[in-house]
């Protein structure tokens, strides 16, 4: 069984008296020692889904099962002990670290809350955690502003590791970093996942970097998961037109001088999503069925699915004839 199972999850916010469905019927599974990527444009609901998974927002429907038990939403009181093994790392290591406390004491919070050891033990453990994320033990006595963006992200990861997590959800951990720091953190995440057998959910709008580190990937559009599968397969033969558009929009640094493909239109307002397939107004392959019906995720192989009528076994053949995709 998966370590985390998200089943048919809905997240709804109320905005000026209107219900906005940020996440609609999303399902996802996280496995030990594997990295799952969750990609999509801003406003697609990926951060809402992340927050729901760690219990920061209460889902309107569906369920989240963590280590065999349903997850309770975060309340005022302390979190049940076993749920502290689910940790979140935010995008911006500038705002998620306290500027006026030393790095060491912030990392030690996780240890203190778990009542682990005395002061000396904790100091030793902080040193080990810093080492694990590639920083020297001397970093413990310094303040966040004394570190670069990449180093701060390492500190944020060390702080999450202090809670001895089995699952870490990372919301855009790489997007504020330069290419080289991005590569360093990406390599670190892969190493930690394998070594500590963590289940990682990596949320990003950058499909290129996700492709490099994630074992599986789910693609989200306007609150729904439109495609999922082993990363390599999704990249080499995307089965949803939206995934295809995302890949075509990535500019390659090959000096070829080719402009990336722009996706026409804008992400619609989630408060009034289009009828039928939510992608149909921007899709180059839209046909009669798309505006009227909501496509289910069609199974295409082990762990592989796409929510597109072109993949409906009943219609796929006719479209192959017309040479679509």
């Amino acid at each position, binding site marked *: 069984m998966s370590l985390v199972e998200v089943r048919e999850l809905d997240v709804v916010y109320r905005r000026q008296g209107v219900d906005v469905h940020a996440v609609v019927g999303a399902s996802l599974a996280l496995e030990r020692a594997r990295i799952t990527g969750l990609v999509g*444009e*801003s*406003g697609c609901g990926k951060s809402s889904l992340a927050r729901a998974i760690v219990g920061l927002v209460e889902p309107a429907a569906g369920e989240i099962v963590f280590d065999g038990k349903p997850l309770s939403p975060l309340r005022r009181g302390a979190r049940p002990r076993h749920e502290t093994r689910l940790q979140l790392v935010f995008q911006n290591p500038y705002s998620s670290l306290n500027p006026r406390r030393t790095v060491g004491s912030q990392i030690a919070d996780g240890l203190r809350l778990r009542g682990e050891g005395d002061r000396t033990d904790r100091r030793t453990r902080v040193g080990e955690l810093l080492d694990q994320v590639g920083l020297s033990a001397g970093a413990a006595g310094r303040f966040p502003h004394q570190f*670069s*963006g*990449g*180093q701060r992200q390492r500190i944020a990861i060390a702080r999450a590791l202090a809670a001895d997590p089995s699952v870490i959800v990372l919301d855009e951990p790489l997007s504020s970093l*330069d*290419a*080289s*720091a*991005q*590569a*360093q953190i*990406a*390599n670190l995440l*892969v190493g930690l996942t394998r070594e500590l057998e963590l289940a990682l959910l990596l949320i990003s*709008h*950058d*499909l*290129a*970097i996700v*492709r*490099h580190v994630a074992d599986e990937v789910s693609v989200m559009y306007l609150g729904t998961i439109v495609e999922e599968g082993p*990363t*390599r397969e999704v*990249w080499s033969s995307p089965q949803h037109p939206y995934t295809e*558009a*995302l890949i075509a*929009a*990535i*500019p*390659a*640094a*090959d*000096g*070829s*001088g*080719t*402009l*990336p*493909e*722009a*996706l026409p239109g*804008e*992400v619609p307002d989630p408060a009034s999503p289009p009828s039928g397939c939510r992608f149909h107004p921007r899709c180059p392959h839209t046909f009669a069925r798309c505006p009227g019906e909501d496509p289910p995720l069609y199974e295409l192989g082990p762990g592989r699915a796409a929510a597109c009528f072109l993949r409906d076994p009943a219609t796929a053949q006719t479209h192959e004839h017309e040479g679509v995709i």
Partner: protein
Amino acid sequence: MSLLEVEELRVKIRTDRGEVTIVDGVDYAVEEGQVFGVAGESGSGKTISVLALLQLLPRGASTSGRALYGGRDLLRLSGRALRRVRGRELAMVFQDPLTSLHPMMTIGRQLSEHVRIHEGASKRAALARAAELLAEVRIPDPERALHAFPHQFSGGMRQRVAIAGALATRPKLLIADEPTTALDVTVQAGILRLLDRLRRESGLSVILITHDLGVMSSIADDVSIFYAGRIVESGPTKELLSTPRHPYTRALLDALPHPEDDGRAELLAIPGLPPSPRRRPAGCAFHPRCAYANDASRVQTPPLVTVGAARLLACHVDPFAAPS
């Protein structure tokens, strides 16, 4: 003659702890209708070097060198002459369009005010021009957009509006500082296509600052790679990205996820960090992170020299020289 020629540009900033050199002698030229790329990591001085051209540097900064534009030195302009050039012939767009758009003013008022101040047009004519500008940057339903406020637009649309504002006075040179960094790739592609069209249709020159070599590859004609306040390599984009000569350029490219490899190879990160402007290493500033550094690299700053048609390189070792 080039539209802009920058020679020996240096920018120093006075701080509590003494003077810090941010830009340490850079030379480049921008041609008409050309997209000139400036690439490098954060802290490399790429933004400061263009803010210097517009005299938009923070207090305590001093510049030396020359930036020749139409026979005048931009670094020495003042008063009216400066205002006539800045915002009219040289315009700028930033990474976050919200910093350049007024949140409480309609788009129409912001754009038309710009046109009225610089071109002395009537209110009605200025509004008509504003609508034209919005159409030019492909904002759907420009007439309606005139009455909207910035927050009513998405990030990509706001960046289009900011570009429309920059184009209001028909500038010759647009300086774009990480214009697509905050945007999704699909939206980024649209902005890149827009810049490309403007360059082709109206001969606009663009200085494009970005740390994203993919963006650079798709639109820049020439690229200069900045490291620690200096240009370490420059040349035509196509050549420079396919046959990089400087170990730093090569390392930047190696750090990127590559489309052709099978995806699961470890990314090649550059060891260490870019140096702070306060503590730049002696010699070649990249030497502590460089696998090819030799004794000369540690003591002597390599000059930027010609290594081929339009290619310049600042490296004592030149480990990737084409075999002769």
